[in-house]
């Protein structure tokens, strides 16, 4: 895996091909994985009682949705990239770029809305660069995004120097306050629902999404089916970049400010959410519904563990164990990874 250009499936899958595709109701195992995770999510809600006496509660659900918003946005981008058979390691610095640009442009006097747009555009450009290098030169996505991410982080450091923390535009911060509601529901939750709708739409109802699935299955076959591989690759990474940037903007508002480390905690969870949601790292399969479920599940578990007052270490152990269990679960369910 992890070339941005997927190799055709000539290598034997881990299971010898005596384990054939299951027939009957297990046939659409892809959707099953997402379903399983949604079910798990719903099961874990009442289980939250173990974490805290006051759980489960409306405020717990609200918190999961609000906190899960950021992961939902970032994992959407990562999910699209993984769908094409690649992986995006530039997440952390792109998120930081989104937050930093918004904050610093606004501080320089540019209207908040314009600053946000410019920030997202800049992150889209970074993503497009990833896509360009990957498709033009055929370098593996892993390394290209790693290199670009490292360069970007370094450039941000160099440019910011000494004044790393940005303050958030007032309007943006207001959006994320609990009190700001629309029909009694916090705006942040509305944003989550919008993101869910947009993500599902882009991945499953646009030609870009279709072509991303094609690329992840087989690049030669995509060419044969008249897919412009280079253009789709650039678009996918570009859209992903936009998502990371947008998440950075949101985080800036949510925390009423952000420093350049704002993106650090999100790279690994973004991969985890995508994988738990049933997407194959190799590409070509998975749904955004699954990614959403994975993001929410991981967020819920994170909140639960924090509520128990357990040390950070145990939180990580459980987090990692959930990932492994989800992987093993999907393997057992579909006899395929």
């Amino acid at each position: 895996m992890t070339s941005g250009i997927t190799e055709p499936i000539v290598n034997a899958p881990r299971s010898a091909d005596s384990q054939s595709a299951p027939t009957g109701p297990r046939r659409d195992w892809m959707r099953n994985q997402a379903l399983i995770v949604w079910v798990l999510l719903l099961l874990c809600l009442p289980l939250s009682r173990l974490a805290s006496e006051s759980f489960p509660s409306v405020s717990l659900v609200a918190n999961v949705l609000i906190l899960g918003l950021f992961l939902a946005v970032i994992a959407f981008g990562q999910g699209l990239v993984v769908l094409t058979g690649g992986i995006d390691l530039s997440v952390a610095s792109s998120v930081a770029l989104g937050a930093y640009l918004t904050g610093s442009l606004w501080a320089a006097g540019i209207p908040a809305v314009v600053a946000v747009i410019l920030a997202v555009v800049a992150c889209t450009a970074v993503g497009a660069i990833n896509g360009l290098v990957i498709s033009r030169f055929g370098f593996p996505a892993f390394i290209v995004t790693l290199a670009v991410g490292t360069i970007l982080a370094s450039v941000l450091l160099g440019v910011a120097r000494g004044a790393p923390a940005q303050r958030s535009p007032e309007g943006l911060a207001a959006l994320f306050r609990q009190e700001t509601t629309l029909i009694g529901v916090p705006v942040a939750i509305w944003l989550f629902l919008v993101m869910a709708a947009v993500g599902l739409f882009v991945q499953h109802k646009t030609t870009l999404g279709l072509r991303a699935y094609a690329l992840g299955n087989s690049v030669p076959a995509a060419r044969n089916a008249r897919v412009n591989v280079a253009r789709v690759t650039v678009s996918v990474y570009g859209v992903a970049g936009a998502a990371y940037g947008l998440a950075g903007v949101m985080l800036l508002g949510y925390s009423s400010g952000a420093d350049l480390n704002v993106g650090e905690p999100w790279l690994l969870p973004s991969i985890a959410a995508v994988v738990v949601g049933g997407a194959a790292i190799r590409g070509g399969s998975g749904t955004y519904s699954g990614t959403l479920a994975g993001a929410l599940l991981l967020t819920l578990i994170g909140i639960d563990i924090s509520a128990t007052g357990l040390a950070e270490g145990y939180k990580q152990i459980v987090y990692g164990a959930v990932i492994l269990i989800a992987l093993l679960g999907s393997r057992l369910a579909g006899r395929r990874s």
Partner: protein
Amino acid sequence: MTHIEIRNVSKRFGATAALSDVSMSVETGQIHGLLGENGAGKSTLMKVLSGVVRPDAGKVNIGGHRLQLGSPRASREIGLAMAYQELSAPPNITVATKLCLPKLPTHFGFAVSQRQLTERARARLREWEADHLDPHAVISALSLAARQEVEIVAALSSSPKLLVLDEPTAALSDPNWLFRQLERVTAAGAAVIYITHKLNEINAICDTGTVLRNGRAVAGFTRGELSEDELVELMIGRSFNHAFPAKADQSSIGEVVLDVSDLTAGVKLSGVSMKVRAGEIVGVAGLEGQGQRELFYALAGELRPRAGTVTVSAKPGTVDFSLVPEERKSEALFLQMRSDFNLTLPLTSQFSRASVVSRRRERQLSEKVASEVNLAPKMLTQRIADLSGGNQQKVVFGRAVAQSPRCLLLFDPTRGVDAATKLEIYKMTREFAAKGHAVLVYSTEIPELVGLCDRVCSLYGGQIVAEHTADGLIESSVMRSVLGRSPEVVR
């Protein structure tokens, strides 16, 4: 005395029964032919024997010992050696390494001894009359013929009790070399299962044989017992001659659609010129590596030509070319997706507006294309990997035709396809041509070209060396010209 016994082997892949209750026996020192069309189950049986695939039912005895199925190691240890059709050498190792795997000679069990490795490899190459091969060459640098030779020598060198060869002469430049080695190995007491669909080879070297059709063993025979026609009938389930649709008569052939002039591409194509007219099916015949792949892929736009021009008339059609490629599994199919996805992906403009996909119109389109290639609607929602080879090929074909190309390019379109589907594909090809399109077909099967095409051009050394039409379009003539042994146009 029966040496090898295969009893009641069955294997399903998804919805397809690749093998159903197959049984056969092979004696020591004999060559047993396994005959069948592409997709009949021959390769699957071989994978069962080699342990790469575990069957759902059945047992295998070698020399009285029961073979543990599903374990490549067990198969090896019991004395089975394989020469696979897909060529089982990792591309990054040397010939010497491949020949000596899995037990590489070492210095004190520690580091691989290159000296011993090379000596051992050379000895093996010499033993089997293949010492023109360089032990130090890396597999990926070898020609297909050389790789096949390496594959065969590796199998021969393991002193097997049972040697299984899957289409071993597909790429060989000198099949007689193989036949000589097989004589020697059987004289030494080995049994051989020789998998092929080439009748002349069966008659030449096989003592006994089994015919597979659609996963079943439909007949056993001894040498000379059955005529070629009888064998063919057993293989395809009906007489061959009536298989092809009627050719185009001169009046239904129209204007020139495709005009190729002096096309040079890749390393192997050196200046090819041809014209294909509306309503015409033109065949390209040639041995491995004569430039046919370069020709088709250059026309399809996947390979940039170095010289020459290609002109396509303005109509009929929406796109200039559409290609059904050589290996559907790696070049055409999206294996994790459903069949309807595979059918309609290139046609997004027909079911989307401003990049937004209409699921309803997508479904309608897939149903329409499926009906045009006789695919059952229930297959649309199945994963394409679960479909049989024939149905998969129909999906690729249907998708190519649905794009309404002015010229349809078919590269070995019936490879790995069962006989019934082959006939469907011939029919659909002819129907497509009759609508006023041009069709260019390459096939490794000369009888297929002769039966299907209005004209056949023979490619040799990257150039067209002969053209066969009308009365000149007979197998023997085409066979001669692809071997480079015949001049000009043959009428």
